[in-house]
């Protein structure tokens, strides 16, 4: 009766989350202790916390890799390689965002401890999301993440855009989580439990045409698609991206994206797997719509943050393709194609995190005192002003476009491969076609940077943090592109849990 109560091992398992929470609280206190000019200590603290967490996670990895996952908290919390891998991405991404934020917040004069605290809390939420195997845990994790996002998006309260963005984001988010919850409640009704495993067993017993499970699935998917920003649930993305503080744009374009995909994968493959063929069908439509809209709409953008909003959407489209290829995983022996599909998604997320953050860390330098610098034209002549940054930006853009020797190509490579292996030739051709379109609009920025006259002479807002962030992202983007072997190995290990 008291068995499930306070097991030391369970708390071992959530150590990273605990650490981060503690650091978050610590920062909130630190806020009152340090002078205004020492505010950078907040960031340092946050980084330390993230460092610990990262260390902890990789330690877990060493213990769990190749072995069975750890299941705790009465089976509501699973620590498997998949969770760990994504947690690691999340933590690293958050750390990079922290590095990005320092200078930016100074310029925006919003260098508050709450900011970092919220970043940490939201990453805590995401990490729970990554390893939750229970509807409630997933839901709560999602909400923690979401609430932080709302607040952070609106963090520059004086700024109307920021504010409007956050309100929109909040209303839609709440609405969508309402849908999500409705779906979850029905799933509970179907399964008689909130544990994914139980639910999927119960689902398997029902006919695929059962309306209840369908309504559940649809509302659930609607909620999830909203989180990952898939068409037609995507519309918050560009607005939120444009309005939010650039550092936060960078954050929500990566962290929550990754987290949302983890929950999506969990629910698809661990919960509503029995309906795989059904949701696959839905998802094909969504994926096509997403890629189309994302790619086409990006072409005409002039605001770079908005532009990246659409580019993110198009990447989501590619990720969904990977999911489509993987559909049906878990039922019996997985085919190579399905495996590659999942690997593709994971690798893609990894690469995406780095290249997108990299791009943003260049964009964020455009924000200088009395210069908003979020128009594409603000990058004009970057090559003549800051060759180094221009070249780095070029690398990131190439990677986003999926040109070989950059990480982006590896991601796309696996996507294409999995599609071909699972016989989705037409999707493959479509994906390839859109890769060309993507190149077209990414190179709009290249053109601006390399072939236009310089727009202004104000030096870029650089800083130590930014430097480190750039270095890290660039290195990873290139390394993954040139020598992807270790990362592929990690990824294959990470998706292993899905193959029973």
């Amino acid at each position, binding site marked *: 009766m008291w068995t499930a109560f306070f097991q030391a091992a369970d708390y071992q398992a959530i150590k990273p989350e605990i650490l981060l929470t503690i650091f978050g609280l610590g920062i909130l206190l630190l806020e009152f202790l340090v002078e205004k000019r020492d505010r950078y200590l907040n960031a340092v603290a946050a980084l330390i916390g993230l460092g610990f967490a990262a260390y902890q996670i990789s330690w877990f990895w060493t213990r769990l890799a190749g072995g069975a996952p750890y299941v705790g908290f009465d089976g509501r919390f699973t620590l498997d390689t998949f969770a760990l891998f994504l947690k690691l991405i999340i933590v690293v991404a958050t750390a990079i965002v922290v590095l990005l934020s320092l200078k930016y917040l100074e310029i925006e004069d*919003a260098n508050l401890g709450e900011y970092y605290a919220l970043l940490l809390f939201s990453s805590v939420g995401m990490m729970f999301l990554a390893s939750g195997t229970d509807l409630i845990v997933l839901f709560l994790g999602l909400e923690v993440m979401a609430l*932080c996002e709302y607040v952070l998006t609106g963090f520059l*309260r004086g700024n109307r855009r920021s504010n409007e963005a956050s309100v929109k984001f909040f209303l839609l988010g709440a609405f969508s989580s309402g849908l999500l919850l409705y779906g979850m409640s029905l799933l509970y009704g179907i399964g008689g439990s909130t544990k994914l495993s139980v639910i999927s067993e119960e689902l398997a017993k029902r006919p695929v045409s059962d309306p209840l499970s369908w309504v559940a699935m649809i509302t659930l998917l609607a909620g999830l698609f909203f989180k990952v920003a898939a068409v037609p649930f995507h519309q918050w993305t560009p607005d939120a991206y444009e309005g939010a503080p650039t550092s936060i744009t960078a954050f929500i374009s990566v962290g929550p994206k990754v987290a949302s995909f983890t929950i999506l994968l969990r629910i698809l493959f661990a919960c509503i797997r029995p309906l795989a063929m059904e949701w696959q069908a839905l998802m094909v439509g969504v994926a096509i719509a997403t890629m189309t809209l994302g790619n086409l709409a990006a072409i005409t953008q002039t605001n770079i943050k908005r532009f990246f909003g659409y580019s993110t959407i198009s990447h989501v489209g590619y990720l969904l393709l990977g999911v489509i290829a993987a559909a049906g995983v878990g039922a019996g022996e997985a085919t190579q194609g399905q495996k590659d599909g999942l690997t593709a998604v994971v690798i893609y997320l990894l690469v995406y995190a780095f290249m997108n953050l990299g791009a943003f860390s260049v964009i964020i330098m455009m924000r200088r005192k009395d210069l908003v610098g979020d128009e594409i034209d603000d990058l004009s002549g970057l090559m003549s002003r800051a060759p180094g940054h221009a070249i780095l930006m070029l690398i990131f853009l190439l990677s986003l476009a999926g040109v070989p020797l950059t990480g982006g190509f590896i991601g796309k490579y696996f996507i294409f491969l999995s599609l071909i292996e699972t016989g989705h030739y037409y999707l493959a051709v479509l994906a390839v076609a859109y890769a060309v379109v993507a190149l077209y609009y990414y190179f709009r920025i290249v053109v601006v940077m390399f072939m236009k006259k310089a727009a202004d002479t104000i030096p870029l807002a650089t800083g130590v943090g930014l430097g480190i962030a750039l270095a890290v992202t660039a290195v990873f983007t290139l390394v993954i592109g040139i020598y992807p072997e270790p990362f592929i190995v990690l990824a294959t290990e990470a998706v292993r849990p899905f193959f029973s």
Partner: protein
Amino acid sequence: MQLQKIAFFILSVLALGSAILVITRRNAVHSAMWLIATLFSVGGIYLMLRAEFLFAVQIILYVGGIMVLFLFVVMLVNLDVAARQAQFSRQWLLGLVTVAVLAGELVYGLYRGHAALRLAPAGVAAATGGNTEAVGLALYQNYTLPVEIASIMLLVAMVGAVVMAKKKLE
């Protein structure tokens, strides 16, 4: 049993009716009032379902907490202006139709498949002791982790609200 049914129907009618009023009232304060009514009737439903603890939570937390907050805010933002403006967005008809169609689809779908519509086998009688005790135990035994997370969530909400609402940064 009839009694139960009647009670149920009264409560649901109350809930739905007041809900409709919530979204139709011109004045936000009235909407809030009607929402409270809805919450009460839903609470009644909980009671019927022997979820006394939840009923209590509904009344205390929801009505006593959240709705008060709502009312504060409604008062804060000058409603006389808002109340004089049009209350429905330009796309209200479109929205209405869409939802109607959606609801139609749902009903039709459920009706069509109601033969297959069945839940997992009903469970046996719950653990001894009152509902409150059961819930409490569940919360602190099987659901410790969610409780932890919920605490973080509330913390976040608090910080967030502070950040958003306090007069000026600093």
